[in-house]
């Protein structure tokens, strides 16, 4: 993907190119592109004078970052304890069957990315599935079809 240097420049400038803001800067880049393009990482490393290994280290250490492009619809299945004891695994398996991908993957048409998250903090409504920031509570395998087709 071509990265727009002026966009990167303005993101870095927002944080005064402070080295401590690396994570925030990467978050903003990810919000822009839905992932971290390699070219963007190179640019950040050069502009901010942070060794590539550190930029790459941060980009791969934190779960929030992805080096692969994501689908238009991002589905997150909460695997927190409260969701786990109420059967979130069964919901995930049904999603994997319906979308024909495994957690962490994106459908071939680039429509859906399926991910698991450790807790979205809506524990009272577990199992929870979040699609593009919209929360679906008290999920069951039976409800999977309806939340997918509602989109």
């Amino acid at each position, binding site marked *: 993907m071509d990265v727009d240097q002026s966009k990167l420049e303005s993101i870095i400038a927002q944080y005064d190119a402070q080295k401590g803001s690396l994570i925030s800067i990467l978050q903003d880049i990810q919000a822009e592109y839905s992932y971290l393009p390699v070219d963007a990482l190179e640019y950040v490393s050069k502009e901010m004078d942070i060794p590539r290994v550190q930029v790459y280290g*941060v980009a791969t250490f934190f779960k929030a970052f992805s080096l692969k492009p994501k689908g238009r619809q991002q589905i997150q299945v909460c695997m927190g304890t409260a969701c786990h004891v109420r059967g979130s695994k069964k919901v995930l398996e049904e999603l994997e069957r319906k979308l024909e991908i495994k957690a962490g993957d994106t459908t071939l048409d680039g429509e859906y990315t399926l991910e698991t998250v450790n807790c979205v903090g809506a524990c009272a409504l577990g199992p929870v599935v979040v699609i593009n920031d919209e929360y679906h509570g008290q999920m069951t395998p039976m409800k999977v079809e309806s939340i997918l087709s509602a989109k």
Partner: protein
Amino acid sequence: MKLTSIKELEDLRAQILADKDPDKPCITICGGTGCHASGCENVISAFKQGLETEGVSDRIDIRVTGCHGFCERGPIVIIFPQGIFYQKVAPEDAKEIINETVVNGKILDRLLYIDPITDEKKIHESDIPFYQKQKRMVLENNTLVDPTNIMDYLGVGGYSALAKVVNGMTPESVIEEINKSGLRGRGGGGFPTGRKWESTRNAAGDIKYVICNADEGDPGAYMDRSILEGDPHSVIEGMIIGAFAIGSSDGYIYVRNEYPLAVANLTIAIEQAREHGLLGKNILGSRFDFDISINRGGGAFVCGESTALMASLEGMPGEPRAKYIHTSEKGLWDRPSNLNNVETWANVPLIINKGADWYSSIGTQSSKGTKVFSLVGKINNTGLVEVPMGMTLREIIYDIGGGIPDDKEFKAVQTGGPSGGCIPEALLDLPVDYEQLTEAGSMMGSGGMIVMDEDTCMVDVARYFTNFLQEESCGKCVPCREGLLRMGEILTDITEGRGTMEQLSLIEDLSELLKDASLCALGTTAANPVMSTLKYFRNEYIAHIKDHKCPAGVCKELITYGIDPDKCTGCGACMKNCPSGAITGEKKQPHVLDTGKCIKCQICYDVCKFDAVTKE
């Protein structure tokens, strides 16, 4: 308006209160994440629109607040001044509520909460058993203020603790007050807050930092999220007071990026505090400077650990370091740093306002004040509860939580997050405080309380936490990185029927090793879920190993589904929903399940209305 003195603050407060008509009706709608998930956004716009179309918007106020705690019953709407509590409110109800309840004072029965035990309808929040036994101090403002409007916070006495501090208290006397109150860290460790402040204050160096740990990573816990979303100013006020006592002018809030509403409300609150001269230079004319910046986390559980969090604030991967030198001496950027959790900070203004003696009168000998728990899992009243320290688990689970749904048997309650343990029924009368929970093999943690019933497999739970921690282990030290991997493999063997009794003792050895040799608390406590389930539920491990059975019917490899021909009515529901085509049969004739094709997804078991699908 920038407030340059305490007098200006108090004048503004007086003005806010004078402008407020206590009899003016106000529709309060919960805007917490739980209610958001239940669709409160549509309810809010329905009310706003309803007030317009009915032409009463100048006579009736509307307020969107933070989390009320009773998330199970959301969206929650409370009508003031009467305090009428409506639950599970839909957008279609808005017009009727405005016309009938707000204008005519008539109560709509169908929206009231019905006590499942007595079948009685409850009108006020305070009549509902879920709220009756709680002591809501930290969460109190959540139902009273609009978190995006600082005037609301000022109206309920906000920033009066700060005023008291800068109006003649010395840093030492603030620390003394916190010490006397007995406040201990609410993030889980339980370290005395005052002592932490004192050592940071006494550490050498001109530049010191105060940090708020809002990287609430424990799965099943969301109290910090609710405080940040619903009452962000209480955390900010606590931090300003802490900074004053410690001698710091820079503060950081490290908040999970998974909490967008918390980030948004915090950002607004900090901005408003700055505009009012409560953050920035020369706060309230006291010559004390302090400001706060927000850093969003990157989604790593280990960053809840103080040194990992500080590494992350420096723009490095969140790996912990050995704490030969405490962070109070060398923390962020190698400078003295004081880190406390969200709930700890939110307690500070309460203590300053009402005094250490009042605060320490609540709780047990060693654990003072209240604790917020997220009561979730297999429990009737799920939600956030705040109780005085020392309340028994039984009271929390049965009196407040309303017991276990569907007449199932209670099996265990898990506290302390992934580093905690599972507590069995025999210990339900345990009073909740730091020491008692640790003694039972669990811990206070940040306050997750996950209730498990007879359908929960304890070996599966142990595997779940072990896998969780293995994935979240940063990999820096060998015991944690390799030990958890091996433990996870053994637990998988057991849940899949390949386990041996020798492996059980191997797990116990590994647990000891993790405890003794890991670098940070993630590793040293990682074996708690395994140890506590082995201690209290050993028979379940043995059933998996010796009998190749999962007594709770959870571990897929050890269960087989079938159809009881005597019970099957041939309705076809299972066949229609089976994703693998394993079920066949004629209409109105008993169906047959082909175990060779069955993928054990349990959908047939869940859809059958006649209990005809069997699980062995």
